[in-house]
């Protein structure tokens, strides 16, 4: 399949000043993501994962190396609008990304800026709100919504741009379990039904376990890149860089270390239940 995101030898440094030296946050990242993939990016705070995400829609530009989105170089200023239409971004704090006092106006904001004709805009706003199950709230004030609902409004605003790919930077970090579930199922549906490529930055291992592919970052480099099953089977390495593995994976690993015959690639509750039953 076609590549939607191509990152070649990406380096990025935050500029220092006369007193402080430059800080290199990304130290040579090579990563390609295919159209329609659902990729989780894991890493502890300071690993560079958010910095990487910000390169995909040109919020940051490489110090060295290249980022291409659907063939467009993010450094090409003339194509910035086109690029941001292809790659939409959702941030962590739901309160920081809502601009209007009515839900549907918020979703329409970017379309209005792009000068999309009224009929088309109406259609896209309605469809986006239905896609995130927030259509019934179209005339509400965002201030009356829960965190999970606000995040879904933010996602609707991105979908209305008909992007090829959505990058979500810890979209569930500030939400309660209910809100997390709502947002996760929305993202998974977008991926499955509309074929939108998803790059999900997260701290939650259970979320990563649901993705097709997991990229683990540490100290500005990609250290693991595989299916969640394979990535989490490196229990020791994952723990060493300050991340968790799902509890069921950890239990299986502990049992295996104690000499019991348990598969090393358990990531779901069902698999764990089966493995324990086999022991007894």
């Amino acid at each position: 399949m076609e590549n939607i995101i191509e990152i070649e030898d990406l380096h990025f440094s935050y500029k220092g000043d006369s007193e402080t030296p430059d800080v290199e946050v990304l130290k040579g990242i090579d990563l390609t993501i295919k159209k329609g993939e659902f990729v989780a990016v894991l890493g502890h705070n300071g690993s560079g994962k958010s910095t990487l995400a910000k390169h995909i829609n040109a919020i940051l530009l490489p110090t060295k190396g290249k980022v291409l989105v659907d063939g467009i170089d993010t450094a090409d200023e003339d194509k910035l609008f086109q690029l941001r239409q292809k790659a939409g971004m959702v941030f962590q704090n739901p309160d920081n990304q809502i601009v209007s006092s009515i839900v549907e106006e918020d979703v329409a904001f970017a379309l209005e800026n792009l000068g999309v004709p009224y009929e088309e805009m109406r259609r896209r706003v309605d469809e986006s709100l239905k896609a995130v199950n927030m259509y019934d709230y179209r005339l509400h004030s965002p201030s009356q919504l829960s965190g999970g609902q606000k995040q879904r409004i933010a996602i609707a605003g991105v979908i209305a741009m008909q992007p090829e790919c959505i990058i979500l930077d810890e979209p569930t970090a500030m939400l309660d379990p209910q809100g997390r579930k709502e947002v996760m199922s929305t993202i998974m549906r977008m991926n499955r039904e509309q074929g939108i490529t998803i790059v999900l930055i997260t701290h939650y291992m259970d979320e990563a376990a649901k993705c097709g592919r997991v990229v683990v970052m540490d100290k500005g480099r990609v250290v693991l890149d595989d299916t969640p099953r394979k990535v989490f089977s490196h229990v020791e390495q994952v723990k060493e860089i300050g991340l968790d593995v799902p509890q069921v994976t950890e239990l299986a690993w502990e049992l295996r270390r104690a000499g019991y015959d348990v598969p090393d690639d358990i990531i779901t509750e069902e698999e764990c239940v089966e493995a324990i039953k086999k022991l007894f």
Partner: protein
Amino acid sequence: MAILETQELTYTYSQGSPFEKTAVDHVNLKIEEGEMVGVMGHTGSGKSTLIQHFNGLLKPTSGKVLLEGRDIWENKDKIRDVRFQVGLVFQYPEYQIFEETVYKDIAFGPKNMGLDEAEIKRRVLETAHDIGLKEELLDRSPFELSGGQKRRVAIAGVMAMEPKVLILDEPTAGLDPAGRDKIISHIKTYHERTKNTILIVSHSMEDIAGFADKILVMSKAKLFCYDETKKVFARSEEISEIGLDVPQITKVFMELKKQGLDFGKEVYTVGYAKDLLIRQLKGREVR
């Protein structure tokens, strides 16, 4: 005697208006001195409204809040003293930092209490130590610190008032797994030194399992339960039904039980699950 007690505590927002909503409904609760309590409930369950009563930020619509047996609203001019005795750390407390140095920020609360310089210094140093802030950081501007460090400064600021009851509203929100563990272990250090009562609000039963002696669960404005951790986990099924997340490992053992493999114990940490399974397996080998 209970350090904190509520009697028929009820709070109604916008009473008398069309938006009237009872957020806390006849809650009776006794929290004993020195306990480490996990507070759970999904958004809208009333848990935040409840904890805001404990230091008098909200006044009950009806019912009472007792601190060491005395109604905190008995004399409303004394409510400031209550706030020194019951410290509340809000969500994302790092946004409330404002002083020039870490030392001054932590000293802000104790200073307001009218303590002398020597006592303020002792408290700043001790809490900084508990929360894992190195002494050389104390002269730095808090704004130069990392997010996790800033949060610890903000928490230390409330701890330094040495409140009899310390309440933290989701102190680990937005942190990575290592950051979450670190904050919790520092709070434990403080708890061990001061033996003060601590309430921690968290969405993660997994996190709570790691520190709480008791768990308080709110649901639909009512007290769902307040009991020892293992007894609350014994009701995992019901807790799951009221929309809270039980740990993955607990779900596995619930499912095993359903399928006829009952270990007769509540399992809520990986370490315990491992020990339990290995013990059982070894027992079988012997037989």
